[in-house]
């Protein structure tokens, strides 16, 4: 998770006046921007800086791969970008709206409406079957978009089945996580991550334990989503993932090195 032992002083909270740093595509229409992110952890007396001033941006339809040695802060970065973790300094914006340093309810709304997160493992709630997992994620997104008013009984079954069909799991909708193979788990996780039709997809080592065939399939589905205009940020160390990326960001010791 963390990278470096350091006695570095606590990073300053990013001042509002600081000029916004953006990617090559410019920040004007960026789907996701991170501005001077700092994150440190405390273990006993030691302070570990996992992120030290990371700035990046992803444009709609763009695929960005984040690479770096294990423990360089990739997962921490992803957590901050998804609003699952709060940076100690710096700002994360989603489509111009600030995600960091907002109440959890607000961050949850942004996640539900715009962000899909694909983790390396444990994407499914173990006591719900695949269909229910997808429906739960889809309903969360739709509920928010319709202004918080429940419009009946959650996402229509047709939409859910369509999504499962797209990832090749149309016949495994009733299965539970413990009954799925590794490849199926990955595809089910992807279905859940895409359930809310997100503008931004964040993936953490989505193909880490997959064979080439499944990896190809997953990447293809992700690319489709990017083709539909979603911003895609993938934390990975797989060369095949890097190969499909429009841009590669290398993270080392909590800083962007390239």
């Amino acid at each position: 998770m963390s990278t470096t032992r350091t006695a570095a002083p606590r990073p300053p909270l990013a001042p509002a006046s600081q000029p916004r740093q953006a990617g090559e595509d410019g920040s004007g229409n960026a789907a996701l921007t991170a501005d001077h992110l700092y994150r440190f952890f405390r273990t006993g007396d030691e302070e570990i800086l996992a992120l030290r001033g990371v700035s990046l941006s992803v444009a709609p339809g763009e695929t960005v791969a984040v690479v770096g040695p294990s423990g360089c802060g990739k997962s921490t970065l992803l957590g901050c970008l998804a609003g699952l973790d709060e940076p100690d300094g710096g700002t994360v914006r989603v489509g111009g709206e600030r995600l960091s340093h907002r109440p959890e309810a607000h961050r949850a709304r942004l996640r539900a409406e715009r962000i899909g997160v694909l983790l390396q493992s444990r994407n499914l709630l173990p006591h719900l079957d695949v269909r229910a997992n997808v429906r739960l994620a889809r309903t969360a997104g739709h509920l928010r978009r319709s202004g918080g008013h429940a419009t009946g009984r959650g996402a229509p079954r047709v939409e859910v089945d369509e999504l499962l069909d797209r990832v090749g799991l149309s016949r495994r909708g009733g299965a539970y996580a413990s009954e799925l193979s590794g490849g199926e788990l990955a595809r089910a996780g992807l279905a859940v991550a895409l359930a809310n039709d997100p503008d931004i997809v964040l993936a953490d080592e989505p193909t880490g334990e997959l064979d080439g065939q499944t990896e190809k399939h997953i990447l293809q589905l992700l690319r489709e989503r990017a083709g539909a205009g979603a911003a895609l940020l993938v934390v990975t160390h797989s060369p095949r993932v890097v190969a499909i990326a429009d841009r590669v960001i290398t993270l080392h010791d909590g800083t962007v090195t390239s």
Partner: protein
Amino acid sequence: MSSGTHHTPPPVPSPRSTHGETASPRGSTPLQTRPPQSAAEPAGLVVTCEGVARTFGEGERAVVAVHGSSCSVRFGTRTAIVGSSGSGKSTLLHILAGLERPTAGNVSWPGLSTTEHERQGQIGVVFQSPSLVPALTVAENAALPLVLAGLPEGETAERVSEALRLVHVEDLADQLPEELSGGQAQRVAVARVLARRPALILADEPTGQLDQASGQHLIDVLLATAEQIGAALVVSTHDTEVADRLDAQWRMQEGRLSLDDPDPRMSAGQIDQPAVPTTSPATSRSVGFRR
């Protein structure tokens, strides 16, 4: 925590070039090196499978993970099992490790102890998922097999620190597994196998959690160690780059094992043929640790 400075792995003794002369940094506890053998002499069998199959579940819902497959592994050989996920390579590896009982066929370990728990000690397994004891520190985890084997305390400590150093986690000796990243935990799991100096090393997707450089390094270490202690090494992987670094490749496809090696002597599916490995053959089942 890793300092992160090992982006590029430091040189590890290359398995081939340093054969026979590599010793541990401490002269007192050299990793045991097998005496060079004449190349013509076939090395002893470590494990052999005859028509093993493994079916999960029963009736209509039964899933066949491994179809009747035969194979054998000799001392000093380095084999990759290549296949896509769900192809049955993990199951086969577990059968070779004696962790999974085949539903059909036979598996035997002619080169290892006949007592089950002793044999288990002679087989080192690196699992795909984290396999450290959560309540023990990195050093204690790595020492476990040695403690089980009854090694004296001092020697245990030396071997453990040496093994941790080999995989670059010596700084993490006092950390608990929950404080490690996935890659670090995986390296500790490898160190635990190295410290034990087993006769057979089975690694299931050992580089799955690692970036490319660390993965390469880990394979280097595994190869070097296997060489030094004369152990047989079997690595399951979906990564062709990893597989290419091993001497032989077995291919698993939908539970069926096939030989994917230009060298027909590599004994997958045909155990009757004498298989002569290309590296350091061994005649005896001597395993590189002292009692």
